[in-house]
């Protein structure tokens, strides 16, 4: 049996990066404060010592420059893994993401693919200042050509990150910083892949299907356990990849239960919950027994942290959503 380490999610990021950098000289990490400082969340801690300043590179403070030059590095045959310090600071580089990262393969008829992984911690709940808590994954899922991954466990994080780096297409890798250090898991020391595009059923159940991903997986599971005591048997599906979504797994679970809830911290309007609802009623309307509930962030800017716990879905709100779906 292979060796394992007991790692937090952020340590799994570091380990996934280190493992793949060890195996593939073309992989370089770049970003603000990722070198000596090891990243503001320590996701690259010690990597510069291990791989040198040519492979773990501190950049100037310029997101478009970071993403744009990573695109250039990729056209030069490298596999860059740029880090943006917080997902709310991807916006200054948005044009590079949308106009280039997503479209370069199409524009060059696959002469150039961009095997790059754009990493950023996303989401709220850590009492961070303004702009540090955004969860705007649909900005990226709405742009064809990108894959968007949002892991929820240390094991998946390492495996998905390695898959993302090996993927010939550009991947936006959004890390749930709320649970960077929330728990540990045994993670193999060697390289392994968790496939991009496959959801995981975290809890089997027969009464209702709850779809979620990233940091919201934990309150969702908590709610499911709480409701089990009341005799409600919820299935929890963790999407893991939000683009392309595992539509088969989503539809299959829903066909079984006929009831659905989607949980995410992104704002409701235009969030993935709407997309999943549309998918379900396209593919499985005849199975549907109740309106699909959206338990999401509100259509407001994420408030400063004294109020952010109001903003973020929690177990209580998820339970309410499940009850509504079940009791309809």
């Amino acid at each position, binding site marked *: 049996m292979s060796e394992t380490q007991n790692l937090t999610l952020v340590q799994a990021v570091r380990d996934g990066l280190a493992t793949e950098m060890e195996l593939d000289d073309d992989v370089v990490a770049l970003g603000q404060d990722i070198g000596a400082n090891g990243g503001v969340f320590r996701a690259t801690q010690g990597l510069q010592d291990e791989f040198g300043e040519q492979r773990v590179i*501190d950049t*100037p403070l310029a997101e478009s420059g970071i993403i744009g030059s990573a695109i250039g590095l990729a056209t030069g045959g490298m596999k860059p893994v740029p880090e943006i310090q917080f997902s709310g600071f991807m916006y200054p580089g948005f044009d590079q993401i949308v106009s280039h990262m997503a479209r370069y393969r199409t524009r060059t008829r696959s002469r150039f693919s961009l095997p790059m992984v754009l990493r950023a911690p996303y989401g709220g709940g850590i009492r961070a*200042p303004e702009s540090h808590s955004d969860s705007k994954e649909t900005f990226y899922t709405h742009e064809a050509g990108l894959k968007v991954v949002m892991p929820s466990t240390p094991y998946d994080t390492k495996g998905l990150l390695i898959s993302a780096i090996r993927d010939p297409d550009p991947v936006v890798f959004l890390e749930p910083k709320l649970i960077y250090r929330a728990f540990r898991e045994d993670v193999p020391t060697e390289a392994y892949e968790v496939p991009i595009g496959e959801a995981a059923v975290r809890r089997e159940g027969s009464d209702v299907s709850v779809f979620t991903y990233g940091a919201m997986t934990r309150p969702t599971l908590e709610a499911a356990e709480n409701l089990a005591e009341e005799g409600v048997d919820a299935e929890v599906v963790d999407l893991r990849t939000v683009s392309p979504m595992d539509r088969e797994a989503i539809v299959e679970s829903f066909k079984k239960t006929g009831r659905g809830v989607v949980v995410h911290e992104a704002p409701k309007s235009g969030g993935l919950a709407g997309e999943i609802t549309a998918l379900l009623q396209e593919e499985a309307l005849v199975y549907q027994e109740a309106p699909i509930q959206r338990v999401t962030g*509100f259509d407001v*800017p994420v408030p400063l942290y*004294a109020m952010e*716990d109001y903003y973020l879905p929690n177990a*209580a709100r998820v339970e*309410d959503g499940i009850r509504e779906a079940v009791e309809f």
Partner: protein
Amino acid sequence: MINIYESTITAAKEIPPYGEEGEAVSTIQRDPENRVQVLDEDGNLVGEPPDLDEDTLIDIYRDMKLARHFDERAVSLQRQGRMGTYPPLSGQEGAQIGSAHALADDDWMVPSYREHGAAVVRGLPLKQTLLYWMGYEAGNDVPEDANILPVAVPIASQIPHASGLAWSWKLQGHDDTAGICYFGDGATSEGDFHEGLNFAGVYDVPMVFFCNNNQWAISVPRERQTASETLAQKANAYGFEGVQVDGMDPLAVYKVTQDALEKARNPDEDQPRPTMIEAVQYRFGAHTTADDPTVYRDEEEVERWKAKDPIPRLEAYLRSEDVLDDDAVAEIEATVERQVDEAIDAAESEPRPDPEEMFEHVYADLPPELQAQRDEFVATVDRHGKDAFLEEE
């Protein structure tokens, strides 16, 4: 990096005199590397001081002490879990207070997120700054008469706003309003710095772009931020002057800022209104309370810069000029402590926010969908109780 300051500042004798009759802008029209200085590290006069009365000099001193003391208390509040992440300013008081004092009453200030010192000079109550970093929306309440734009978290993003704001004065014919826009050394790498300064040059707007070059952008040192020798010289790309000033010398900062504001208001013919000032300084503490600077810089470097601390420097000068004595200093310290105590008490008495607050101020009128979200959520919180949502305090 550690030699940048020394290398030019020690050449004090090369700094030409300025401020003489008829040479109002000579602190500005100079080589960017020729850093302006008035006081040396020990508070001795090495340049022409600005023309300030004693009260103003004492105000500058007092405001620096206030900023320093506030900063120390804020850091300790954060350590005690009474406040969230906070960006300290110690070491940077000379630049903040010196420049803010040069503004006229109707002038405006466009901050980044570290100018708590400058903000208090401009009329922002300390309580507001505390509330903001304690995560309360109420911290965003700014008195109507405080001419200050809000904290801007995305680096450099406030710079185009500053250009636009100053442009509005020109378009509206308020000839004598001017402003100051603060940002860090790291901010000069962002596209918004470039676009903002370029607009300022093209529309020739009355704005002073004030770079608090504290040598570090979190862990990235100034010399890895850009290959240009000075940051000040970047102004040349936009058709106006850039000047370096000793940012830990409040009197030099005052002088240069005043000259730049004067030029913004009343330029000579063919003289551009905007100026970029690079105030060379140092942040003594961490980037924010979430940062550990020992990982990326030496204590020795910090000590070297602490020798240039703007507060003892101005104090020494004011004592030598008999403007300050032990009693005055003691009284200032007592006042400052009381002021900060009161602000902390006031901030900590702020009630827990209500859930409906989150929906206020998103639009002038709440759209129906958002009303529905609010009403449903308020009902949810009523049903479960606030404690199911907010952590106990």
